[in-house]
């Protein structure tokens, strides 16, 4: 079996790599200041390099605290990088214009509970300066896509968690984005809710959208992703096409993930089945 380092380096350039890079990160480092250590810094992302090509569904994996959300925060302009650069559509992420063509779904967001889904989407569509007729058409389309047409006039406070997450997905899609950044989109949802979100991602993939998403649901990642990256302690440990990784390692994504993050298997628990 090849080593992980070999796997990373052996990945041949796929036809997708010839496409335009929608997300590009070069030598990204992010450090947070620790309050308890009199201003000492803690590296959260360390020298990260990756790119996501047009039309790809890219799974961004890693255990909690690996630096996934921080990387997304840099891409969205919420956090400034300590060093290195990141670009969306060739625009530096520090420029607000870089966010014109993206949709973002954060993890566990409680949208304005006094608004209805329709009003919430109208508000977000206004920010994108979508003309009125087009705006109403887009709202109808996304509400249909996330199956919330029946509840469009109800206030969000009456929604279940799954419905709230689908409203979140609808707001991320209201501007018909070319790139979707999803931070654990199925977190906290029941199996039906997860399936619905997964179906939406699958449909977006079929429409040729680029999706960059983090998740702990490895089964879901295997279902929808073209390529995955595994981040551990702020460092990129693995980046490659799913099919090639599975072939070269002869194991499931879950096994690969556990190996990459250095999980030691307890002898009393049954081993994970190999592919």
């Amino acid at each position, binding site marked *: 079996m090849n080593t992980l380092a070999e796997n990373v380096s052996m990945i041949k350039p796929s036809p997708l790599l010839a496409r335009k890079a929608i997300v590009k990160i070069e030598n990204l480092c992010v450090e947070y200041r620790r309050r308890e250590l009199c201003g000492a810094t803690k590296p959260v992302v360390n020298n990260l390099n990756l790119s996501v090509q047009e039309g790809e569904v890219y799974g961004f994996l890693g255990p909690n605290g690996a630096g996934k959300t921080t990387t997304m925060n840099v891409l969205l302009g919420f956090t400034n990088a300590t060093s290195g650069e990141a670009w969306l559509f060739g625009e530096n992420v520090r420029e607000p214009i870089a966010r014109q063509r993206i949709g*973002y779904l954060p993890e566990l967001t409680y949208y304005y509970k006094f608004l209805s889904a329709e009003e919430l989407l109208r508000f977000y569509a206004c*920010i994108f300066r979508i003309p009125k007729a087009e705006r109403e058409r887009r709202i109808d389309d996304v509400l249909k896509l996330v199956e919330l047409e029946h509840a469009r006039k109800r206030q969000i406070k009456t929604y279940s968690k799954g419905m709230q997450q689908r409203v979140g997905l609808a707001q991320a899609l209201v*501007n018909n984005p070319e790139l979707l950044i999803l931070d654990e989109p199925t977190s906290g949802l029941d199996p039906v809710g997860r399936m619905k979100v997964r179906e939406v991602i699958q449909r977006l993939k079929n429409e040729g959208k680029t999706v960059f998403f983090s998740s702990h649901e490895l089964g879901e990642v295997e279902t929808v992703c073209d390529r995955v990256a595994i981040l551990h302690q702020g460092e990129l440990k693995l980046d490659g096409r799913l099919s090639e990784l599975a072939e070269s390692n002869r194991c499931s994504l879950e096994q690969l993930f556990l190996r990459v993050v250095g999980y030691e298997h307890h002898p009393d628990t049954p081993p994970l089945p190999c592919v």
Partner: protein
Amino acid sequence: MNNLFAVAGVVIKELYRRKDFYVLFVLTILICVVMGSVRIFNDAKIARYLKEICLLLVWISSLVIAITTTARQIPAERENRTLFPLLAKPLSRTELLVGKFLGCWFACGLALLCFYLFFALLAGSREQHWSFINYFQAAVLHWVMLGVVVALTLLGSLVFTAPSSNTTICFLAVAGILILGRHLNKVALHLPEPRRSILYAVYYCIPHLELFDVRDLIIHNWPPIPWRVCILATVYALAYATAFLIAASLVFRRKAIN
């Protein structure tokens, strides 16, 4: 402007869909109607006292609405994580702040309109005449003053972590300025240096919100204020509101939101 009005629209919707305003409005109506229905000491000019109490309630209610509504805006966005999808859109932090300011200020304006309409009805029913120009001037100056309070509270919401501490501090600051602001220079006269200079500096730095309190104008049916003075007062308030908003924008731009 499009982004500003979109953000402001959500704040206004929040005000009329929450119960805070209705509770204060109904409470003011109840107190004034009950007080207006009783005849105290058979005083023929009782309407003057009634107007004074009603206006005091309107002032307290408007400050409660302005400060509590504004203080929760940014912290609620952070707590509910709605700040993330919002700033992931082509909306700058300054636009968000100005939108929130306009929303809170217009919402206060709508609340004031209801309060002053009720006041006009009450005063007119007791006095059988309406000093519309006086009511209009008092309401406009009151609203302009609330602009300063809203901007100050917005700045406080970025400096203080908890909305409750911001609300308390803003209430104390505004009440302090309204009650003591006009007397600071007289107190400074009797103080030794350097306290005198410090107090004078405070006197000239604080926004003199008491200048906008023209309740006596309508309580005693005095002639209207010259429009020139109203415009100057408006410019004065807008200058302070702008200064607070610029400070808030500088703080917000440097603040990590993750």
